[in-house]
């Protein structure tokens, strides 16, 4: 059975202002690349109503680089992310997340803004965006505001985006690029590690996703930021786990961080996995990543 499309009203503006006018009226939802909404529509689970299709709004496309940030339009696709030479160098976890989202056809159509707004706790890009300290720029007729992405998800599929607001841009603050691993362990520099555990390499929805950024000075964790997928009602910014690492020699802090992570995750049983499996795998993957960095091995995704 197909959805009764007569119950769906769709406008397809080209101008951002027109999108914001509609959203300001209330009762409009946003359609971007369709990789989530069209699946939901096909499953007869998309609420009938009014939809603003933003696919043709050029103001929401493009990646711009300044000295202190890389700014991605909300319609930036996973393919756009993978192709961008500076994202490859400075934000490899986001590139890897894009590579591990669906497969080529999905990557050509799925957008960062959609991935964020859809707010699935299993989404692939949020862990990387959390670990990189991303900032969201939301536009509405009332104005523009910026929010730390780490504060954005407030509950299962709940976010700080108001109904009149559109996620227009995703901003990545530029910091030191991740260092190549060195024999004997990384003692100074930034290390990134992204892991995704799924049933297969492509087309899988994560059972566990993990993005870890460590900044080391003389073997001590000067800073740590950890994002995780599929282990909480929201894309998880693991503040307690990061705090267990910060200010301590990495080698000495691993078990405390792993224990903190086991307490910080709150996974569920569902069709893809069990809560017990997810907690155990999340903990194991974090331990593996931290041990690899500590030992100077490349913390690569081995799946």
């Amino acid at each position, binding site marked *: 059975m197909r959805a009764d499309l007569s119950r769906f009203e769709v406008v397809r503006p080209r101008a951002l202002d027109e999108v914001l006018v509609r959203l300001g009226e209330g009762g409009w939802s946003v359609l971007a690349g369709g990789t989530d909404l069209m699946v939901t529509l*096909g499953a007869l689970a998309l609420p009938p109503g009014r939809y603003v*299709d933003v696919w043709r709004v050029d103001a929401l496309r493009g990646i711009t680089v300044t000295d202190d940030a890389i700014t991605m339009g909300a319609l930036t696709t996973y393919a756009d992310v993978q192709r961008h030479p500076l994202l490859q160098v400075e934000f490899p976890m986001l590139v890897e997340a894009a590579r591990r989202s669906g*497969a080529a056809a999905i990557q050509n*159509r799925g957008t960062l803004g959609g991935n964020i707004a859809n707010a699935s706790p299993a989404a692939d890009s949020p862990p990387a965006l959390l670990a990189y300290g991303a900032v969201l720029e939301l536009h509405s007729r009332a104005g523009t505001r910026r929010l730390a992405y780490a504060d954005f998800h407030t509950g299962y599929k709940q976010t700080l985006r108001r109904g009149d607001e559109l996620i227009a841009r995703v901003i990545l603050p530029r910091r030191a690029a991740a260092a190549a691993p060195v024999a004997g362990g990384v003692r100074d520099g930034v290390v990134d590690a992204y892991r995704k555990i799924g049933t297969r390499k492509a087309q899988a929805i994560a059972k566990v996703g993990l993005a870890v950024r460590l900044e080391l000075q003389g073997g001590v964790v000067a800073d740590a930021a950890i994002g995780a997928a599929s282990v909480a009602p929201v894309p998880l910014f693991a503040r307690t786990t990061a705090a267990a690492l910060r200010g301590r020699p990495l080698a000495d802090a691993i078990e405390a961080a792993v224990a903190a992570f086991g307490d910080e995750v709150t996974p569920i049983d569902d069709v893809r996995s069990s809560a017990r499996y997810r907690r155990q795998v999340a903990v194991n993957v974090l331990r593996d990543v931290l041990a690899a960095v500590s030992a100077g091995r490349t913390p690569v995704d081995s799946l």
Partner: protein
Amino acid sequence: MIDIELVVNGRSQRVHAHPLARLLDVLREQLGLCGTKEGCGEGECGACSVLIDDVLVNACLVPVGQCEGSRVDTIEGIGADPRVAALQRAFVDVGGAQCGICTPGMIVAASALVRTRPRATPAEIRTALAGNLCRCTGYVRIVDAVAQACGAGESEGGA
């Protein structure tokens, strides 16, 4: 319902459809292009692979309202490109098909690869086809067919 103009396999078409109608249904039911198959209908299997402005997509997930003014190329039209015709011949020569349901999508997905990376490696071929499921072949002859087309492109290219 809206009128949407698009260019399908090189021919200008005007279709009358709801903007959320799936490109897949418009191709098959309004334009009679039944080479594009429906498998899962949720972007998992790749049977409905088509190109929009040379970019690989799942036609089951593309609302036709997003195709206005675009070029859409399906399995019925992509063989006009000689590199893709060579790819299609390779599927025949190598036996890269059994029941055939996945084959149009496989060839469209592979065409997106050979047009951009005519000397793709086996690993690149497997990544490019990762969104296309085949329940018969075990993929070996499919990958072999694409590899042969890539090899053929190499010798024909003369470089």
